[in-house]
């Protein structure tokens, strides 16, 4: 995969005496043991247990029944679709809003320090705390958001009570909480763009819009690729915010795979829950691997 792009700097390829290297291989072992036992082993075990009816004490092999159920039960399919919608909406908005905020914050604007801090701080706050706060703020009649809208004569929607809207409301809160991270990543990307490009564009008489479209946007592609990958994977895996705000409701309207996994776990359907894990894993692999390959390929052509 993109392992080769992640590799360290070249020029270290000299072959060292392997037998008594000053950089001993056993330095890997503490990390390797913890990682293997608590991450790799369960991951491989999940491939088997997802094919069983499982009580933690004994497992009955039932083939692909759990997966068949995932594709048959309407509320499980709903969870699958919701997961993708949620990931696309949150990562898309984070890219757009994050980039705009970063452009604003790297320009000659006043109070940059204040703006940067205020936008970034929610990243560090407890997700559940944010979720609960916004659940209160988004209450259809007593919530502050709709009361605020009422001042302007707008009747706010039932953010979390409308089944068609609940998932998007949670996604909005996710963007509120996470856009600060996208913004600082973009800021790091933008300040790394050499000034010469803008200088050249200025001499050619570029408008601010052309500056943005033909200089900034292509040259901050590494940042875009980081933001998309991070927030897309994060979006596909989201559990805590959804659980804190809607618990997948109303009905199953805002269930995602991660919340389905938890619900099936609570209900004692361990096999089905584990199958959910495998489905999520496949979904991430199927969507994210081509996505990162696409983003990196484009980058190579620049």
């Amino acid at each position: 995969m993109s392992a080769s792009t992640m590799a360290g700097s070249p020029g270290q390829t000299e072959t060292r005496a392997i037998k008594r290297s000053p950089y001993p291989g056993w330095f890997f072992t503490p990390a390797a043991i913890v990682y293997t036992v608590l991450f790799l082993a369960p991951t491989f075990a999940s491939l088997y247990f997802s094919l069983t009816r499982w009580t933690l004490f004994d497992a009955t092999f039932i083939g692909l029944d759990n997966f068949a159920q995932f594709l048959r039960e309407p509320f499980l399919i709903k969870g699958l679709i919701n997961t993708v919608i949620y990931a696309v909406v949150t990562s898309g908005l984070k890219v757009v809003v994050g980039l705009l905020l970063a452009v604003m914050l790297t320009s000659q604007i006043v109070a940059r320090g204040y703006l940067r801090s205020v936008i970034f701080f929610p990243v560090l706050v407890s997700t559940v705390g944010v979720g609960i706060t916004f659940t209160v703020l988004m209450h259809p009649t007593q919530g502050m958001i709709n009361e605020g809208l009422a001042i302007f004569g707008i009747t706010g929607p039932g953010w979390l009570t409308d089944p068609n809207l609940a998932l998007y409301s949670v996604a909005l809160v996710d963007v509120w909480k996470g856009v600060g991270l996208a913004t600082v990543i973009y800021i790091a990307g933008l300040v790394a763009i050499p000034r010469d490009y803008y200088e050249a564009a200025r001499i050619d008489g570029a408008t601010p819009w052309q500056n943005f479209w033909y200089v900034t946007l292509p040259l901050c592609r590494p940042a875009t690729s980081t933001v998309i990958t991070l927030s897309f994977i994060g979006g596909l895996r989201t559990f805590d915010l959804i659980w804190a705000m809607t618990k997948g409701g109303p009905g199953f309207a805002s269930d995602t795979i991660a919340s389905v996994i938890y619900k099936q776990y609570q209900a004692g359907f361990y096999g089905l829950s584990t199958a959910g894990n495998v489905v999520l894993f496949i979904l991430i692999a199927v969507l994210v691997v081509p996505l990162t390959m696409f983003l990196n390929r484009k980058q190579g052509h620049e």
Partner: protein
Amino acid sequence: MKKRASIIGGAAAIAATFVVFVIPFIFIVLMAFKDRQQSALRDFSWPTGFHLWENVFEVVKTRNWMMITAFINSSIITVVSVTLLVIFAAMVGYVLARRRTRWNGLIEFLILAGLMVPPAVVPTIWLLQGLKLFGTLHGMILVEVAYNLPFSIILYRAFVSTIPRDLDEAAIIDGARPLDVFFRVVLPLLWPVTVTNIVVQSVGIFNDFTNPLYYLPGNANATVQLTLYNFQSQFSTAYNLLFTNILLITIPPLLVFLFFNRQIVAGMTAGAVKG
């Protein structure tokens, strides 16, 4: 002319971000100051009286001082797992950046997999039960270490490759053993990225809700994020206490933010430029 435009733009930006990002926090603080009756209105109003200390006391002593237990548990989990993470990840990052072996490809792949693959929850519980670690702080700590290793390793590896090899080679020529080279020469040089690691991972682990929910059930083992979850159902009407609780668990990240803002941003944006 241009200056005036930037001031107007700045004022608009300040106003907009204030409404979107600051008001929710002011709301939390105001709610924490209110008494139960007033907080039930859930409106954006000035508290009629100063009830913060009563609320804090009430929240802390609820459920047999669960909040204290939770803060202790969360602190233990955070401190121990971050310590292990730093040492384990620095060792891997160091050797990974310095030495080329045929294992490197596999290790890189495992690191990426660790960032992408969602943890298999129930099999992990099953395994922890087998190891008699389920529902214990030890188990929770090891899980946090395992899940957060890939990110820490990436930070360390990137930083190690910026440190000149001459430094550790000089120590090696002087006859220092690998462990001495690592702990006395390299690890101190890694201090900046260690601070970044400590800050970013502490915030993440302290705020972690999902993993304690799965792997650390039971009131005796509650972490701060779970107190919030318990309170939510218990105080479905006592909004003043709920928001006091939110305020209390927001203080640690706020302190980290005030003192380590730069390191957090450095850690979280690592790799953004290089891709």
